[in-house]
Every structure is written in structure tokens, then in C-alpha cells.
């Protein structure tokens, strides 16, 4: 294996960047006086590690400015509300939303999709109406629609992909019809890394007046996203994959859609007035934010966005692309290794199978070398069926990963093969 330490990608000073992430300097599996192995974290697709800037912003907020928001006349409540709402504006700018009124904070991407399915879906979809998904959806963008299917007897149509993992646009065109009432498709597959042609998907749906939701949980992490350029009607993502905290998701919606949608949950902070004769609701986004939101987490997301923008999204994308190319090339030299997902322009996610060794065994052994990968079906079981692979190993790269870590993965895989005589 080549020593890649010296070959750093020019886009990002990654060794400097790594110093921002305290957890990356730890080792794992140290015991009884024996030193552990340096952590090689290749599971950012499941959840990204947090830079000190995010951790400190949340700590500072809790220590200095914390209070509930939107409801107090006291000093701290106003301070906290101002900081919270400033992040809404920041998030809008981050995805080029036309207004912060289009940004709804949720608990997760999952909740954001459930919100659309429950609020928009229940209101505007009826028996026989069709929702188009793709074969590469995460369960979070399948099951909410199945719940709606059970309730409203809608029909779910699925766009296939080819053997490289490229979405079949011709099939998509054929599936679009007068019965289509919504399209909900990932912007980047969490298993294959495929980046879908969001702008084309939206344009084709809009020819028929059909709104489109994109699951941007992976896409927003790996490159600039412009919801107006895509012309997305809904766009969802989550903070914790974006180097921010858990417990916080974002729903972007076109305002004229959001304002036609009824509340998803009822409670405080989403009402104008409550009486037992009837209750009136605030306009979006407040209408969809019942109860006290994850205030500190929103502050953390704001810090994560600042951090990402300080590095430069183009620079991050270039660095991750370099890692993807390098890792793909190195992994391809491992005999018996088959990469699942080879679409052009894919994101830095590599799923693979190793002949003769079950992914679970791969995961356990590479973990002993300090290498953290995901094994399983990655919450996308229909896709596993499609590629007839069952579970796979997934290495997902983030802005802090290095070529040397790709080498460490390859070396640990060679050890796996030796172990199993595969």
C-alpha cells in the first residue's frame, strides 16, 4: 500500500482541521496498559463528529444566555430568542431559501418528512393518488408514506436505478401521470452515494404541477445546496450529520405550500389564541413548531454552519471528492471486493461487499484496528434487495478524513481477508 501521508489534497488543510475535532485524537480498544489504536472514523454518514466550535457555542449559550424563547419579556428570553431566530436566517442563507419564514425546525429529517406526509399528505392526497419514491430511499422516506398509504389508500410508485446506482430518469418520466400528487426522492443516497439530478426531477414534476420533496440528509453535507435553483418544494436535512448536534432537523418548504398546510402537532408556541370555542394558529414556521424546540441544538447548528462556511463548501467538496477517488482506487485493488454504487458524480460514501466474509465479521475485525465503519443494510432494505447483496460494509467520509485513513481501511481489510483465508 502506498504511504499517503505525504499526499494531502490541496483543497483543505485537513491536519489543521482535525485539531478542531477533539474526539479524532482519541484511541480505541486500549486496555490493561496496552495502547489502543488511533480512531479512524469512517462513519460520518451515520453521524458526523462535532468540532470544538460547535461544542463551545452550545456550552457558552447554556452558561451565559440560556432561557426559553418566544415567551418571556425578560432579558435572557429576548437574548435567547434573538440568537435562535438568527440561526433560522443563517439556515435559510445556507440553502439559499428565499426567506427564513420557509425554515421549520424539527427533531430530525425523519420528523420533517413525517410532518409533510401527515400535514400536506393528509390534506391534499386522497384515495388512488400516487406518491413517487425511489428505490434508494432511506426508511425515513418510505415508512411515512406507507403510513399515509394505510390511512388514505394512496399508491406508492418506485423509481428504479441501474446497476451503477444511477436513478432511471426514463422510468421516472413514465411513472409521472395525472395521478401523481407528490414526489419524494433522496438528493444523495446514504448507501450508494448517488447524487440524484434534483433540478431535472423537480422540473419534470412541475410540468404536471406536482410538488417535490428532497431528502437532503446526505447531500447538504457534501456540497452547496440551492433550494431555489433546484426549485424544491420541500427540502429536509438533519443537524447531526452536518457536524452539528442530534435532536434537530430542518424542513424547508415553499411558503405558499406551508401556509396552506394545517398544523402537524398542537401545543404552545404555535397558536395565536386558544379558547374552547376554537383555536387559531400562527403562520408558518411557528405553526409547525409546537412546544419548546431544541433551543441549544439550534445554536449548535448555527455554529456548525459558521464552521463549514469558514472552511468553504467548495473546498470541503473538493477534499471529499479527492478522498472518494483515492479510496475507491485503493479499495478496487483488494481482490474479492465489490463496490455497490458507482454512479458518476457520487458523494463520498462507499458501500461494498467482500467475497466470502460477512459484513458483520468485517466490521468486528476492522474495529479492532480502530476503523469505524457501518455494517448492515443502512436503513435501506429495498435497495439491498435490489443489488442482491444483503448487508454491506459502508465507509463514509467527512471533511476531516485523510487519505491515510483510507489506507488504514484497506490495510484492515487485508487483515480480514488473511484472517478468513478469503
Amino acid at each position, binding site marked *: 500500500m502506498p504511504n499517503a501521508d505525504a499526499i494531502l489534497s490541496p483543497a483543505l488543510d485537513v491536519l489543521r482541521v482535525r485539531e478542531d475535532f477533539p474526539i479524532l485524537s482519541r484511541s480505541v*480498544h486500549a486496555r490493561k496498559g*496496552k495502547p489502543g489504536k488511533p480512531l479512524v472514523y469512517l462513519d460520518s454518514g451515520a453521524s458526523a463528529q462535532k468540532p470544538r466550535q460547535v461544542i463551545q457555542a452550545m456550552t457558552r449559550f447554556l452558561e451565559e444566555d440560556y432561557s426559553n424563547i418566544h415567551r418571556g419579556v425578560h432579558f435572557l428570553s429576548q437574548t435567547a430568542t434573538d440568537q435562535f431566530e438568527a440561526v433560522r436566517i443563517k439556515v435559510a442563507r445556507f440553502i439559499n431559501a428565499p426567506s427564513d419564514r420557509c425554515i421549520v425546525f424539527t427533531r430530525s429529517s425523519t420528523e420533517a418528512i413525517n410532518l409533510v406526509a401527515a400535514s400536506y399528505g393528509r390534506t391534499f392526497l386522497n384515495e388512488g393518488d400516487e406518491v413517487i419514491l425511489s428505490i434508494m430511499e432511506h426508511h425515513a422516506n418510505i415508512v411515512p408514506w406507507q403510513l399515509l398509504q394505510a390511512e388514505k389508500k394512496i399508491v406508492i410508485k418506485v423509481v428504479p436505478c441501474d446497476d451503477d446506482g444511477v436513478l432511471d430518469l426514463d422510468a421516472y418520466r413514465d411513472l409521472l401521470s395525472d395521478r401523481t400528487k407528490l414526489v419524494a426522492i433522496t438528493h444523495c443516497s446514504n448507501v450508494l452515494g448517488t447524487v440524484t439530478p434534483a433540478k431535472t426531477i423537480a422540473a419534470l414534476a412541475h410540468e404536471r404541477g406536482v410538488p417535490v420533496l428532497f431528502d437532503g440528509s446526505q447531500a447538504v453535507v457534501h456540497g452547496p445546496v440551492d433550494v431555489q435553483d433546484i426549485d424544491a418544494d420541500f427540502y429536509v436535512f438533519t443537524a447531526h450529520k452536518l457536524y452539528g448536534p442530534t435532536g434537530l432537523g430542518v424542513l424547508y418548504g415553499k411558503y405558499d405550500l406551508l401556509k396552506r398546510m394545517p398544523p402537524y402537532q398542537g401545543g404552545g408556541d404555535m397558536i395565536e389564541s386558544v379558547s374552547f370555542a376554537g383555536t387559531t394558529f400562527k403562520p408558518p414556521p411557528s405553526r409547525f413548531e409546537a412546544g419548546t424546540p431544541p433551543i441549544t441544538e439550534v445554536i449548535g447548528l448555527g455554529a456548525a454552519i459558521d464552521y463549514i462556511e469558514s472552511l468553504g463548501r467548495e473546498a470541503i467538496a473538493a477534499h471529499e471528492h479527492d478522498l472518494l477517488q483515492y479510496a475507491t482506487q485503493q479499495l478496487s485493488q483488494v481482490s474479492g471486493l465489490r463496490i455497490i454504487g458507482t454512479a458518476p458524480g457520487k458523494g463520498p460514501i462507499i458501500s461494498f461487499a467482500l467475497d466470502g466474509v*460477512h459484513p458483520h465479521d468485517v466490521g*468486528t475485525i476492522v474495529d479492532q484496528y480502530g476503523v469505524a465503519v457501518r455494517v448492515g*443494510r443502512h436503513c435501506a432494505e429495498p435497495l439491498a434487495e435490489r443489488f442482491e447483496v444483503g448487508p454491506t460494509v459502508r465507509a463514509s467520509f467527512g471533511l476531516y478524513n485523510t487519505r491515510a485513513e483510507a489506507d488504514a481501511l484497506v490495510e484492515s481489510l487485508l487483515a480480514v481477508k488473511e484472517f478468513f483465508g478469503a
Partner: protein
Amino acid sequence: MMDDLRELYQEVILDHGKNPRNFRHPDDSNRQAKGENPMCGDRFMVYLTVKDGVIEDVAFQGRGCAISTASASMMTELVRGKTAAEAETLFATFHDLCTKDDDEQGDHGPVDEDSREKLMVMSGVRQFPVRVKCATLAWHAMNAALHGQDSASSDQF
């Protein structure tokens, strides 16, 4: 570190994982149960031929990792010819070996030395808590089949 790995993946386990014994569907089986681990997709069907309270034949089919396949294979060798009660004793003893420290393991009934030694082979899994479900999957399915249930899911272990 590597010692733990060698302990988990002993030669005998690698052998059973690669060449599982009793990997078939017997024509005359009269009990069967599916064992499933939804997290990783491992799925086994365990077939028992029980006559007069004795497990005359036991076999399995399915797909899983080296640990779950080897454990299933070794399970079939261990419970064949045993009574239902003896098989339950083996299961309970094995479960303790995989999940509990030596001094916390209960007495679930008599287990002969040879069987105990074979059960011990799998106990390296104790150092790898996330793999315990792999090691016990087929055993749970066998136990479910014995009790007339048609499935065991690792969500419920």
C-alpha cells in the same frame, strides 16, 4: 487485541462458519422456527424432528455471519439426540456463557463435559457485546421451535 479476535474467531468457528454442518431442510421435520436479526439481516430457519420428547434430527438453513453460522452449526451437533429439557439446559447454559461473567452464571442443569467444552468455544463473544445476538440467534430459533413458536427475533432477546 488480536488475542480477543483469535478467541472470538477460533479455528473451529471459522471451520463451522465456512462449512456448516446439518445445513439442510429435513423432509420429516415437525417443528421449525425462523431466527431473525433485523439489524444485520441475518436470517436462519431451524428445523427439528422431535419424537417422544427427543430431538431426533436438527438442521438449519439461511444466511448469516461467521459467528451466527458457526453457532447454528455447532448447535445442531449439540442438541441432536437430546430431550427437549436437555436442549433447554444447553441453551440456558450457553446463553449465560455468552452474556455473563464466570461467577454470575447460573446452574441450569447438568451439562456433560464434552458439551460444555463445545459451548465454551463460542464464549469469546462475551468480549464483543454487539455480537452476542449473532452467537445466540440460532439457539433462540431452536428454543422457539421447541416451544411451538414460529419465529424468534433478536429484537426480543
